């Protein structure tokens, strides 16, 4: 069973995230890390391979610092990494990102499973998995909260708003997982040491045969026109409950016409 896991390096949500002058995301002025939601995808890949056999390759697109996301995944236990790094990619939208990922997956050799997180923690669109399924012509099995892979068939449970659904597809398939599916492991000391010897390939657009005119800020199919920092919310009234906190709360709601 060969698995490719797509992992994204993102600005830390705890830091002061913002934009550059060209309205692209500031990826340099803030600390970055492996998108936490992709840890669930890495963990799931490791569990599948550990239950049988196979190999886990992690794939990322991003600037030099994105190598950290690959490293963390290798420390968790993935076997090898591929890092697509090319200045021409900077400022790409989801359409271009999925194009480059799809070409990289083809070059790796379409695996039995392509695994992704449910959404990144910066763009938070939750669209790259469906775009990859469309581009690669793979069955789409997204938002898995439980997953089993048996006899070439993936079966998953999706926890929807009105129903809990069971979804099946034959492999090869594209699968995205939620943060309900498992508890990602921390890299062990042994894992951290072993990761140093694991192979990581660095590819550019030329290696993938992708024309630079199809990616990057200038060629994106969407354009950010303006970004505005919201003024922080002003703190309102805080009262300490002295036996009348509930009454005061009700009064606030009445004054503001919620009652």
């Amino acid at each position, binding site marked *: 069973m060969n698995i490719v896991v797509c992992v994204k390096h993102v600005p830390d949500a705890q830091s002061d995230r913002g934009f550059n002058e060209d309205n692209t995301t500031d990826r340099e002025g803030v600390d970055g890390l492996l998108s936490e939601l992709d840890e669930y995808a890495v963990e799931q890949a490791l569990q599948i391979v550990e239950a049988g056999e196979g190999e886990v390759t992690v794939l990322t697109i991003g600037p030099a610092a994105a190598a950290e996301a690959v490293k963390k995944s290798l420390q968790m236990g993935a076997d090898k990494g591929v890092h697509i790094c090319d200045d021409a990619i900077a400022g790409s939208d989801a359409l271009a990102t999925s194009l480059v990922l799809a070409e990289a997956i083809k070059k790796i050799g379409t695996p039995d499973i392509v695994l992704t997180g449910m959404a990144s923690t910066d763009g938070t669109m939750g669209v790259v998995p469906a775009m990859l399924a469309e581009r690669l012509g793979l069955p789409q099995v997204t938002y898995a909260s439980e997953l089993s892979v048996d006899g070439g068939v993936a079966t998953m449970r999706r926890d929807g708003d009105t129903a809990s659904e069971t979804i099946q597809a034959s492999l090869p398939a594209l699968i995205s997982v939620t943060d309900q599916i498992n508890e990602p492991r921390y890299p062990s000391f042994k894992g951290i040491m072993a990761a140093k010897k694991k192979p990581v390939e660095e590819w550019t657009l030329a290696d993938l045969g992708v024309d630079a005119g199809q990616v990057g800020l200038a060629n994106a199919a969407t354009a950010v026109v303006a970004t505005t920092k919201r003024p922080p919310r002003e*703190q309102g009234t*805080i009262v300490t409950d002295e036996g009348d906190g509930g009454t005061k709360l009700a009064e606030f709601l009445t004054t503001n016409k919620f009652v």
Partner: protein
Amino acid sequence: MAEVLVLIDHANGEVKKPAAEMLTIARRLGEPSAVFIGPGAETAKDLLARYGADKIYAVSDPAALEHLVAPQAEVLAQLVAEKQPAAVLIPSNAAGKEIGARLAVKTESGLLTDVVDVQAGPVTTQSVFAGSYSVEAKVSKGTPIICVKPNSAAPEQANGAGSFEELSVSFSDSAKASKITASEPKKASGRPELTEAAIVVSGGRGTGGDFSPVEAFADSLGAAVGASRAAVDAGWYPHSSQVGQTGKQVSPQLYVAAGISGAIQHRAGMQTSKTIVAINKDEEAPIFELVDFGVVGDLFTVLPQATETVKGK
């Protein structure tokens, strides 16, 4: 004027509130055409026309809904090719965003998701980085595909012609490659839906697993009930009620957080609410930085007292 396709959000034929909002928005961009996929289009017809739908394209083939999102993207791709619309508006929920994703690849068009406002252009507004920035964007290639969040416009009635056309679409084999093999309906709470509600009352770890004061207060206000991830992970409340980055993003008129500390991932789901109220024992809790009104106190005494007072009004 060009058509604007609006994918209608419905549950088993019952049209959901965002559909009327999106038809209202579509009128700013062109002539609204409702796209209704699934059973019940005939019944929904009048309502869609009342909110301005000039045309209604219906697909009743049950296969459209049995294979996750791929067949629905094929329906829209066919319509985009035939009608050359000015834009396609799709509900910005998990499935809608995936339909938009596949449609964007098929039509080589730009995709904007989690949009909270659309003006002529179309120029969209998104709220990003846990609500700390507001972003205006547009699509520069292909047909603008815009996923619109609930509560993005006040629905306005308009008399649309509502001419009805049943489409026949044959789905590709690859669109049918994943199949929903079983579906276990969840028990309805009888409360408003979380993302559409005008008021949301949420409980966190501070409830210690007892949501009854949260639910009673919600019911006194006619509100939906939400939960923090800590409460969901503990098994106290269903995941479908989780508010935050990996749950629902809500933007109601009033959000009440009880026994919730206000972690960044929770804020990502509620920070754009109009009015925010918190009840927390700890006066240092970060949630208080956001509030219009806060009570430092025990939710088990504050909420029941507030519930009684509200009920007495």
